[in-house]
């Protein structure tokens, strides 16, 4: 019995190494195929992401005079791919914020009566002059843009 077992174990030895070689071979050939298939598929699926990344990369948005919000009101506009909010303060100055709530990404709204920026999703509230998170769940202030007014045209740039 033990003799037989010994013999069997002996016979299995070259079989095992051959199997290991075969497995490695299959693995290498498989990897050679996976790359050339996965790469075009990734690039194919990623094309719009690449286009929107190019759009998101813009640094400056100009707002023509006719779109300038009246005193005490705000203008919603797109800064690249993100919503932004331009507030014309009562003192005549302008402030501009990224309109994406820092809590869970909803778009915030300027509420002139309450003089605040509010997020309807979870009740986050921001100070309209500074964008500071003042109530509710938002962990951080709104991202602020730099506003310049020259020759009646407003230019908003990344701060």
């Amino acid at each position, binding site marked *: 019995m033990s003799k037989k077992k010994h013999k069997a174990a002996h016979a299995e030895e070259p079989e095992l190494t051959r199997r290991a070689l075969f497995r490695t071979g299959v693995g290498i050939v498989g990897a050679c195929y996976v790359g050339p298939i996965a790469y075009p*598929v990734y690039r194919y699926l990623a094309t719009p992401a690449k286009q929107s990344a190019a759009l998101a990369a813009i640094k400056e948005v100009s707002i023509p005079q006719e779109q300038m919000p009246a005193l005490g009101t705000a203008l919603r506009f797109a800064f690249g791919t993100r919503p932004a909010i331009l507030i014309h303060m009562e003192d005549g100055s302008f402030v501009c914020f990224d309109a994406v709530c820092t809590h869970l990404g909803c778009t915030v709204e300027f509420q002139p009566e309450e003089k605040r920026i509010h997020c309807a999703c979870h009740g986050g509230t921001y100070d309209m002059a500074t964008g500071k998170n003042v109530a509710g769940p938002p962990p951080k202030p709104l991202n602020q843009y730099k506003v310049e007014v020259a020759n009646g045209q407003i230019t908003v740039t990344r701060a």
Partner: protein
Amino acid sequence: MGKSPSLARKEPQPGLYGWLDERLGLDELLDFARAKEVPHHGQSFWYYWGGISLFLFLVQLVTGILLLVYYRPGAEAYESVRQITYDIEFGWLIRSAHSWSANLMVLAVFVHMFSVFFMKAYRKPREFGWWSGLALLGLTMVFGFSGYLLPFDELSYFATKVGLEIPQTIPGLGPVIVTLLQGGEQVSAVTIQRFFALHVVVLPLAFLALLGFHLWLVQKHGNAVPPSEELKPEEKRRSIPFFPNFFAKDMAMWLITMNVLAILASLYPWGLGAPADPIAPAPEGIHPEWYFMSQFQILKVFGRWFPGMTGEVLGILFFTAGIVLWSLIPFYDKDNTNARRARHASWFGLAALTGLILLTIWGYAEI
């Protein structure tokens, strides 16, 4: 010792495989696949064509889903295919792979059908395998026809118009069917939307169900052996285990098919013609895809012999009769006891194959 492996309490294997095996019974599946035998003989090569067809169908599923990411049916169809072909990175390759593998799949299914026919694998008890296979071929052709319209370029527009003339000749119901298929009097954006629903939902569901049935029958009855092999005494017949021997060869065939597909799709990318224009005349030399060429040629020839609608109707009747006879062959050549009928069936198959090839060549010669 002494106990059969299934009765013995198994020591769980280490690692991920062992973990999965304990829960999913992978070893049982492997044992089953190892015990399953596939006949091995001079004609074994033809056994791979069903698998090749299946592989190409899987390629269709994957590339089709990828195309769905950008394709927009309806009025924007052409523009979206233009974007896929020229604007989206590697879109041309995905689309080319879809078109090429569609053509290769039709070819593989035809090879599979004729090899099954000549090996007489339609005989008892495999009649339903034969019929479900024919239905799968039919669905494959409808897949081809409906998919051809979707880019909505010149060629696809006229090919669909001409193709829909065939159901038009069905007495009484023809015009109703065609109006329903087109969604109006003309091939238009509405037609694309319908063909799209057919192509990406209805046909795949029907195909997958039938394919499941077909594969279950193959598993149930096993591979048929050709008559030459049947004559041999039992002890002279050879077979190989399904796993790993046949499976490895099957996978090798898939790999070869994938290489052929990759070469064709990348070196001969599928083109896109001018957008379809219902007012423009049909382009010179317009012709159907190769797998519809023989039918097209029959219609043309019968139209010449019997001018007017009679010719067309006769052509369609002739073709339909051929298909009916073809599908009824298991009732004629039932088993291996009637040599005369077996010979007749073989001659019928040879005539059908030669006829299809000659008509196709003739069709291309007349373009």
